[in-house]
Structures are given as structure tokens and as C-alpha cells.
């Protein structure tokens, strides 16, 4: 424009030449600048990134985020997949996230001969699994039969296993046995199928076949923890079958093959005692029962052994020991009753599982660990059978899923308020995520300080800390008494106790620090979704406010989010109620059982005193 102006103004030759040079240089400079700016990422790059960012959520088992990213990418045509593959992928994600009704439709192989066999096989495989989950056994069985050769070896073994399972579930045991005989030996699936078939055969009176299968599972030479547990379970089942048949020797034979340390050891120890007891070998019965009664009394088999042990002592003419063990049992049963009653009260108030309800972990691994961490000494151990129940665990997972959905929706409502400028002085979403991350950072800093200074008290449990403080308090009081010689022994004992506590805390410092470190990592991973994981720092502002269409669409979206969030709230209360009811029913069952044991123990003591008195009474 300067050049045009110069021309219009009648600039001289050299002046014009200078201006032209400058203009050319300016133009070249602009082109150079444009060349320095990289072009937009290509469609191929966008598709690749869309897929890989979805994989991040998939690999971290955040199926909700993976599905959202999938649908967003599909809307933008950023998925480098054929339509059929998209459906399969979507179906697989839905199956992982528990939307199995839709997954079943998507994964069902499309009709027509053009579908490659590998895709068809996978489709039938997933169709069978989802049908079984929905208790549609006939569909599951017929889908499993559509699977042809070509699956990976482990999946093929799994299909064979499921075929046996479906037939057992339909009560077609002979067919199940024939199906089982076609399975390839050696896989874990083969062992599971053999076990389930054996149990089913025992239940329907095919004892010979059932025992043969279970004994074979019990004698498998295995070394993985799952297979060892399965072998224990098989041996236990055989042992208890023989106990019911009052056949002691084969019962002992089977039960002694169960590992002493394992999930089935308590039941095996109890059964062993009874097997000896049936043959009046009470001294031998005392061996497993004495071991068992020392274990945690929330376990029903331990409660049983607390009664069986003094009973055996009474049989071997050791009434003094019998009375001692009965009285010990009485004390423990009374303590147990109190624990059960307190737990029932908490369950009725809704606070029994409060830690799991208020902050449910968002991944399965942490859920299982948190359930185990409720620990053998805790009240939750009273309902350990419930926790072992897959359906009960499913209730917790469902609760967790709904809570996650609600968090997601509430976060959207806040974000939309912010976007539409309806936010309060400090946008709550930003405050929540920023405050949350600030809290976690503080914890992280405390953790780092504790680790670098090896502060053993930093990772002490509450009861250890309380004990440490109690000891320190007592020491301080003793010192203030001026070193009275009569209190020297007590002071020495306090020093020993404190020393032991310090030694234990020091010895376990590294392990506790590692555990806390990993829990901190999990805390950070629990940042509510759809809020930035970036310390709540907002993006730099857009030029101008939202306009027209976006505002209206967001308003509609906000309304939907609020409505669905309210429905989530209703569902959460329904789940809490169901979990509460199941827990109460289980605790009530335990209370009745403990009352029966208490009565038996009192009866046992009374018996012994009665017999002793009758011996002492003068003969008439």
C-alpha cells in the first residue's frame, strides 16, 4: 500500500526502487514466516492420536472415558476403522463397562457369509458370554456351538469350559461329562471344568464320577496360586463328602492334602478334627482344633472349633482343661455377640460400609484390596462370606459406577455454569479440583519429608500411635515423680515396650512407605473425570463469550445432566438399601449362630460340673 501511495504521489525513481525493495523484502519475510508455521496435523495423524488417547483410558480400565472418547472420535470421523470393526470395538468397550445388553447385540456376528471367520468366532464367543450373564442359557449354549476353530488357544479352551458350564447350569450332566471329555488337557480351564463337573455330579448323586474328577483336581501338580487354591477346594470338597458319609479315613486322606496356609485351611482343620472324632480319636482331633481355635474368631469355623476343643478334652477325661476352654469360648462368643450387635446397629444406620460408600475406588483392583483391607479383625470380617459372593461384590461395583456417573454429571453442570458465565465468585469445579489436588500435593510433601527423614511415626497406624503416646505419657509422669525406686521396674517395662514398638515401626518402615506412596498415586488417579487433571488451571481465555447455538445447546445439556444426576441419586439410595439389607440378613444369621454356640458352651460347662458333682455326692 505504501508503494501504491508512492506511485500515486509521483515518487522519484530511486525512491520508488527503494520502496519496491522494502516491499519485496516484507513480502518475502511474510512468506518465510508462513513457511515456519507447521501445517495443521493431517487427518491420519488426528485419527492415530484419537485412537491412542482412547487406548490410554482402555489400558487404565477407565471404560467410561474410553467410550466417551470413542463416541467423540466417531462423531468427528476420526476413527480409522471399518464400520463393522467400529461396532465390534464399541461392543467390546460396552461389555467391559457393563452395558452388556447392547454389547450382546453389537458383538453378535452379522449375518452373511462375507464376515471373516475370525470375526465371526469372536462375535459368537462374546455373544455366549453375555447371554450366560443374562441367564439365557439356551442362547449361550447355541452361541458357543457356533464358534469354530481359529480362536487363540486360551480363548478356545475358555469356550470349551463355558460349554461344560452351560450344560451343567441346564442340568444336562451326562452331556456335560461328554463335552468335558472332548476338552484338551493341561489348561487352567480344563481344571476348572473338571472341578465344577465333579461338584455337580456329587450333588446329583453321581458320587463315583464326581469323586474321580475332584480327586484328580486335588492331585494336580500345580504351582500358581489360583490352581493351588482350586486343588485345595477340590480336596476340601472330597473330604467333606466323606464326612457326610461318615467315612473317616478317606476324609482324613483328602483333608490332609489341603494346605495349612490358604483360603480353605480353616475348613480343612475343622473337618480333620471331626474325622478323627467320628472314630473316637479325640486326642488326634485336638491337634487341628487347637490350631484352628487360635485363629480369628470372626470366622465361623474358628467359632466351631472353640466349642469342639473343650468337647474333645472332656472326651479324653481332662475336665479341668475342658472347663478352661469352654470358659474361654464363652468370653469370645460374648465379645463376638457384642461385635455383631454393634455391626447390626451400624448397618441399620447405614454407616457399616460408610468408607466404601463415601469414597469408592474407581478401579476393581483397589476395590478388592479395600475390601480385603477391612481386615480379619474388623467388623467387615463378620460378613466375609458376603464379600466372597460375586453378586454382592457386583452391588458395590454398581454403586461405584453410579457414583462415578453422578460425579461426572455434577462436574458438567458446574462447567456449563462456568461457561455460561453463571458461575459464582469462584467456579466450584475449578475450586474442587484445585483444592483436591492441593490437598494431595500437601500429603505428597508430608510423605516426602517423612521418607527423607525416616520418621517411623509418620506411617504408624492409629492404634500404634495411640500406644506410643500412651507410653510416652506414662514415662513423662514417672519422670515427674522424681525417679521413685519403686517405680523403676515399671519404668523399665515401659522402655522395653517403647523400644519394641520403635523397632517394629522401623523394621516395617520401607514397606509402609511404599504402600503409602502407591495410595497417594491412587488418590491422584481419582481426580473426578472431565475436570482437568492439570491442577485446575483453566485454559487461556477464548476470544469473546459463547454465542447463539452453543449457549442453547449447553443449556439443554445442562438440563439433561441435572435430570440424569437426580436419577443417579435415586439409584445410589436403592443400592445402599439393598447392600444394607443383605448385610443385615447375614449379620442376623451370624447372631443366631453365635447364640447357639453360646448355649452349647454353657451347656458343656454345666455338664462337666454336673458330672463332677454327681461323682462327689455320697451314694445312698
Amino acid at each position: 500500500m505504501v508503494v501504491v501511495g508512492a506511485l500515486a504521489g509521483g515518487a522519484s525513481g530511486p525512491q520508488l526502487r527503494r520502496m519496491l525493495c522494502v516491499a519485496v523484502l516484507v513480502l518475502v519475510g511474510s512468506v518465510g514466516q508462513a513457511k515456519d508455521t507447521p501445517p495443521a496435523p493431517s487427518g491420519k495423524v488426528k485419527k492415530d492420536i484419537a485412537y491412542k488417547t482412547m487406548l490410554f483410558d482402555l489400558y487404565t480400565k477407565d471404560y467410561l472415558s474410553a467410550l466417551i472418547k470413542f463416541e467423540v472420535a466417531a462423531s468427528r470421523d476420526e476413527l480409522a476403522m471399518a464400520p463393522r470393526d467400529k461396532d465390534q470395538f464399541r461392543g467390546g468397550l460396552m461389555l467391559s463397562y457393563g452395558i452388556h445388553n447392547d454389547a450382546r447385540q453389537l458383538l453378535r456376528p452379522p449375518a452373511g457369509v462375507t464376515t471373516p471367520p475370525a470375526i465371526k468366532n469372536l462375535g459368537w464367543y462374546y455373544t455366549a458370554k453375555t447371554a450366560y450373564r443374562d441367564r439365557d442359557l439356551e442362547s449361550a449354549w447355541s452361541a458357543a456351538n457356533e464358534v469354530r476353530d481359529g480362536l487363540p488357544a486360551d480363548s478356545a479352551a475358555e469356550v470349551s469350559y463355558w460349554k461344560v458350564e452351560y450344560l451343567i447350569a441346564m442340568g444336562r450332566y451326562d452331556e456335560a461329562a461328554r463335552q468335558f471329555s472332548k476338552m484338551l488337557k493341561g489348561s487352567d480351564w480344563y481344571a476348572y471344568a473338571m472341578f465344577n463337573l465333579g461338584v455337580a455330579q456329587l450333588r446329583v448323586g453321581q458320587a463315583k464320577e464326581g469323586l474321580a474328577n475332584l480327586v484328580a483336581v486335588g492331585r494336580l501338580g500345580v504351582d500358581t496360586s489360583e490352581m493351588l487354591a482350586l486343588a485345595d477346594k477340590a480336596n476340601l470338597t472330597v473330604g467333606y463328602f466323606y464326612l457326610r458319609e461318615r467315612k473317616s479315613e478317606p476324609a482324613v486322606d483328602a483333608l490332609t492334602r489341603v494346605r495349612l496356609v490358604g483360603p480353605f485351611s480353616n475348613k480343612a482343620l475343622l473337618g480333620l478334627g471331626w474325622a478323627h472324632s467320628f472314630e473316637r480319636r479325640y486326642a488326634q482331633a485336638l491337634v487341628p482344633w487347637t490350631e484352628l481355635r487360635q485363629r480369628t474368631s470372626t470366622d465361623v469355623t474358628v467359632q466351631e472349633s472353640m466349642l469342639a476343643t473343650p468337647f474333645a478334652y472332656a472326651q479324653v477325661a481332662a475336665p479341668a482343661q475342658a472347663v478352661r476352654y469352654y470358659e474361654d469360648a464363652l468370653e469370645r462368643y460374648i465379645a463376638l455377640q457384642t461385635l455383631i450387635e454393634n455391626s447390626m446397629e451400624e448397618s441399620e444406620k447405614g454407616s457399616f460400609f460408610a468408607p466404601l460408600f463415601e469414597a469408592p475406588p474407581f478401579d476393581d483392583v483397589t476395590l478388592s484390596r479395600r475390601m480385603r483391607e477391612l481386615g480379619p479383625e474388623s467388623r467387615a470380617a463378620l460378613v466375609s462370606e458376603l464379600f466372597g459372593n460375586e453378586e454382592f461384590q457386583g452391588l458395590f461395583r454398581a454403586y461405584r459406577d453410579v457414583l462415578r456417573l453422578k460425579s461426572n454429571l455434577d462436574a458438567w453442570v458446574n462447567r456449563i455454569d462456568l461457561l455460561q458465565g453463571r458461575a459464582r465468585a469462584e467456579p466450584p469445579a475449578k475450586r474442587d479440583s484445585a483444592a483436591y489436588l492441593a490437598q494431595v500435593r500437601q500429603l505428597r510433601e508430608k510423605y516426602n519429608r517423612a521418607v527423607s527423614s525416616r520418621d517411623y511415626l509418620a506411617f504408624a497406624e492409629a492404634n500404634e500411635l495411640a500406644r506410643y503416646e500412651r507410653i510416652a505419657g506414662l514415662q513423662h509422669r514417672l519422670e515427674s515423680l522424681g525417679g521413685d525406686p519403686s517405680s523403676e521396674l515399671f519404668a523399665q517395662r515401659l522402655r522395653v515396650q517403647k523400644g519394641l514398638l520403635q523397632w517394629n515401626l522401623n523394621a516395617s518402615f520401607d514397606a509402609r512407605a511404599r504402600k503409602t506412596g502407591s495410595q497417594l498415586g491412587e488418590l491422584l488417579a481419582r481426580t473426578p473425570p472431565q475436570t482437568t487433571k492439570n491442577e485446575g488451571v483453566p485454559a487461556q481465555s477464548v476470544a469473546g463469550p459463547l454465542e447463539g447455538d452453543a449457549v442453547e445447546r449447553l443449556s439443554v445439556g445442562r438440563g439433561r445432566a441435572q435430570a440424569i444426576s437426580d436419577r443417579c441419586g435415586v439409584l445410589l439410595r436403592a443400592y445402599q438399601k439393598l447392600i444394607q439389607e443383605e448385610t443385615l440378613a447375614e449379620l442376623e444369621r451370624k447372631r443366631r449362630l453365635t447364640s447357639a454356640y453360646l448355649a452349647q458352651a454353657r451347656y458343656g460347662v454345666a455338664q462337666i460340673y454336673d458330672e463332677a458333682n454327681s461323682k462327689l455326692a455320697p451314694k445312698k
Partner: protein
Amino acid sequence: MGIRGVSRSLLCALVLALVPIASHAEHNVDGAAARSLDAQIQALKKEVIDLNKELTLIEEEAMFPEATQVSIFLSMDIGDFFTLESVKLKVDDKLVASHLYTQVESAALVKGAVQRLHIGNYGAGKHELVAVFTGKGPRGADYTRAANYTFQKGKTPAYLDLKVTDVVKKLQPDFKVSQW
């Protein structure tokens, strides 16, 4: 039968009634109630996914127009020489992202997944990016490295990749930033 005999029979009956033959938990959850709730959850999940999709599309279109959009991703290659524990990201000397990685997340990156660390709006021109990576290096030693990069923002979306790779010759990790 004497008292001892009665007691023994009672105890036997008690134990055999208690322990199930297949050692499965006897407790059955109320299946009908659980299934009804399950159907409701499945419907809810679908609605939430659909809503999230719509809102994400609206939000990204409104909040991050193409002319100013910059997306920064993190990826890893192999991962034998470095275990990622955290990353801090600054653009133009302002902290824009920070993330602590769980083992599962680090493993996901090593398997080939990519994480979007930051999306923001930046004007046309030069911008300075600094990324600080913290983790465990070769032989498990603490390791902190920074990578910086100057990128030019034009009128189209910019995608930047923070990549951690293994340099086998040096037995060391390498931290690079590039623009797609």
C-alpha cells in the same frame, strides 16, 4: 444315649449343617432386585455417554477454536530405561499441567497409549514450552530431566508430542518435543 453322646450328635449336626459341600458361599443376593437395578444402570450409562459426547463436542468447539487450539500429548517408546512418575508442563513460563502417574498409567504409555496432557488457546506467534519429567532412571536411580521447545502457532490447530524414548546405544532415556 448319655449326655456326652447327645452333645456329640448335636455338635456333629451343627458342623455338617454349617459347611457347604462345595465350599461356596451359601448366601444368595436378592437376584431380582439386583437385576432390575442393573438394567437401570445400563440405561443410565448409555445416556451419560451420549450426553458426554455431545457436551464434549460443544465445549471443545466453543472453548478451543481451531485458530487458537494447542494440544500437548505425552507418549513413551519402550520404557526400559525410564519409569515415569510425574511430569510438569509450562508454556510461556506458566504452569499449565502437572500429573503424577500410577503404575497402571505408566504401563499404559509404555504399551503405546498416548495421554493428552493439556489443551489450551494460544495466539499466533512463538511460544516456549518446558516439560520436566521425574521418575526412575537406569538402575532405579532418581531421575529428573527437562525438555524445552519453541513452537510457532499459526492459524491451524497445533499438536505437540512430548516423547520419552530409550536410546539403546547410550542406555539412557531421551526426552524430545516435536510438533505433528
